């Protein structure tokens, strides 16, 4: 009898398979799309287009310390160092198309949804122009108010219908609505299990180490519409639930002393030191805004519901929504503090950091620190400064705990 695989084994195999299958699909003459990380991939999957995600690829390249070659390439082509490092890695990769870390095949089309970032369209537009391939944009207007207006939803719905026509034209096939229903159903199931797994961290101690969440995230990006993804996250949930029942914490050694929210993208390029310094002080990242980033729920075959769900990614919503969400998570996960990653790459997220910090302190008395870093550019983080900030946060959290316990 073969032993049942752990979710970690499955994760590693599926990541490798995702990239291998992409190369195979291209070799077999299938269409390949480069797409943004939280886009309606359902439409592409339904048309049997193989989708790869440049952000995810850039993160994988950075995590293996390979990003500098690509950053230097795009910078030498004239892209400013102030531009997002996902974009710079990818725009460099587009020219080099070879990395020791992992490879993605050249795209036949690009598919851009600007819910993740208001400037991402420029990156994709450049790809499409330089590679002379179709550029499909799904424009999700920023939600300045708490809820999306009806006309915004109607605008997005119209676009989704238009995309269907564009895909029919590109593939020369009629749109497969049955396959779309199937992918919609699976995508919702995957999102369900992803969220459920991440939310096991509410237990005290948390069975989940937040940096594992960062690793598993690779696949909620890449195979959300595939049943392998759903099965992986269900298994991961079962394992975490089992750990929680046994009262097991996030690590084999060391106790979870402080529970924090990590706000912003991980420093993929310095994953190990940023993780180890937190662990050294017993600090576990129990949650972030990521768990809900891919909880894109809608009814199968409800295109309008799908439009709304994609519009509601937190980076596309107003400051009030984000701070309410953060305060909700802080209460729900019993948070001691927050680490804000002031990411040189991500102006959109950085803009609200100080206000979020102020509200957390004012409304919930939760201490926080901000550190300068970047997701893929290794030149930005100073480890010594990072450690000083983390340690200062620990000292503040410790004092608050002591005061609460009357020590």
């Amino acid at each position, binding site marked *: 009898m073969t032993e049942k695989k752990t979710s970690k084994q499955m994760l590693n195999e599926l990541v490798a398979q995702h990239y291998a299958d992409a190369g195979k699909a291209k070799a077999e003459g299938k269409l390949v799309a480069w797409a943004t990380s939280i886009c309606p991939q359902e439409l592409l999957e339904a048309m049997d287009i193989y989708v790869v995600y440049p952000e995810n690829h850039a993160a994988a390249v950075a995590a293996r310390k390979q990003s500098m070659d690509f950053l230097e390439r795009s910078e030498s082509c004239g892209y400013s160092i102030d531009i997002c490092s996902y974009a710079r890695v990818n725009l460099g990769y587009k020219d080099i198309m070879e990395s020791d870390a992992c490879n993605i095949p050249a795209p036949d089309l690009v598919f851009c949804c600007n819910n993740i970032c208001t400037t991402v369209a420029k990156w994709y537009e450049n790809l499409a122009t330089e590679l002379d391939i179709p550029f499909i944009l799904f424009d999700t207007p920023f939600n300045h108010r708490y809820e999306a207006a009806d006309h915004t939803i109607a605008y997005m719905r119209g676009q989704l219908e238009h995309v269907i026509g564009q895909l029919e034209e590109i593939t020369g096939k009629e749109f497969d609505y049955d396959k779309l229903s199937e992918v919609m159903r699976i995508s919702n199931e995957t999102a369900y299990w992803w969220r459920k797994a991440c939310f096991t961290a509410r237990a005290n101690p948390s069975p989940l180490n937040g940096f594992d969440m960062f690793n598993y995230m690779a696949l909620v990006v890449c195979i959300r519409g595939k049943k392998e993804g759903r099965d992986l996250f269900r298994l991961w949930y079962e394992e975490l639930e089992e750990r929680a029942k046994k009262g097991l914490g996030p690590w084999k050694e060391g106790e979870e002393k402080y529970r924090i929210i990590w706000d912003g993208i991980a420093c993929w390029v310095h994953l190990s030191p940023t993780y180890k310094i937190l662990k050294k002080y017993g600090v576990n990242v129990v949650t972030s805004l990521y768990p809900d980033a891919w909880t894109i729920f809608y009814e199968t075959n409800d295109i309008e519901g799908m439009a709304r769900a994609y519009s509601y990614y937190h980076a596309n919503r107003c400051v009030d929504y984000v701070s309410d969400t953060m305060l909700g998570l802080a209460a729900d996960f019993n948070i001691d503090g927050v680490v804000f990653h*002031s990411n040189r790459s991500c102006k959109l997220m950085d803009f609200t950091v*100080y206000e979020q910090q102020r509200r957390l*302190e004012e409304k919930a008395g939760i*201490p926080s620190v*901000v550190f*300068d870093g970047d997701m893929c550019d290794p030149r*930005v983080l*100073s480890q*010594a*400064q990072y*450690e*000083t*900030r983390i*340690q*200062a946060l620990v*000292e*503040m959290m410790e*004092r608050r705990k002591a005061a609460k316990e009357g020590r």
Partner: protein
Amino acid sequence: MYLGIDIGSSSSKAAILDDKGALIAHAAVNEGTGTKGVERALELVFDEAGVEVDTVKFTVVTGYGRITYEHADKQITEISCHAKGVSYLCESAGSIIDIGGQDAKVIKIGANGIVENFVMNEKCAAGTGRFLEVMARVLGCDLSDLSHLAGQSTKEVPISSVCTVFAESEVISRLASGEKRSDVAKGAHRAIAKRVSGMCGRVGLKDCVFMTGGVALNSNMVKTMGETLGREIKAAPYPQEVGAIGAAVFAKELYEKA
């Protein structure tokens, strides 16, 4: 005896409290982490205190070099140590503006010297002691003379660049266009004060604000900071050694708690 050591990026400081908690020695040496500065600072304080090393019951280390220093019983961040040190020296202190060699921070202090909140500068050297070092070099004077030079200013020349590297070239071009050294020096002080006052706004200042860190030895910087913020700012006693003094206070508290 209780020993506090503060190993900064450009200077090393040490302080000793006696068993009753009185400050009996403190010293600063202008050589920071990775040098013999810490050994020299320790020699100075033990000489001044007239006590032997083995009388030390507990040692706390702080500062940039704290993580790699192996001879202390505990390491604590400079944020907590500055708050502790200032409130030991001045009970009424509400806020601290600490400008060191490569860090600038604003700290809000609670009862018994606890840190209520703080902000630190971003990664770059803008608004830190390093900025003044670069300015002194371009203006052709010693760092210790910069305050006096700025004091002679009659017409402040604004330095608009935030970045230390750009500010350096801005200063060169100002001097080349015939501006007086003293006026440019005053502008450099103002540039730091403006940068740091933004941080003060973020964390909020309480009454009774003290400046600490090596930059507080520059009296014109303290004055410019006060002018910019529109309130009285005082240099803490022994501003450079405050972190080490706070570390020594922690050493006593931790020893007595254990």
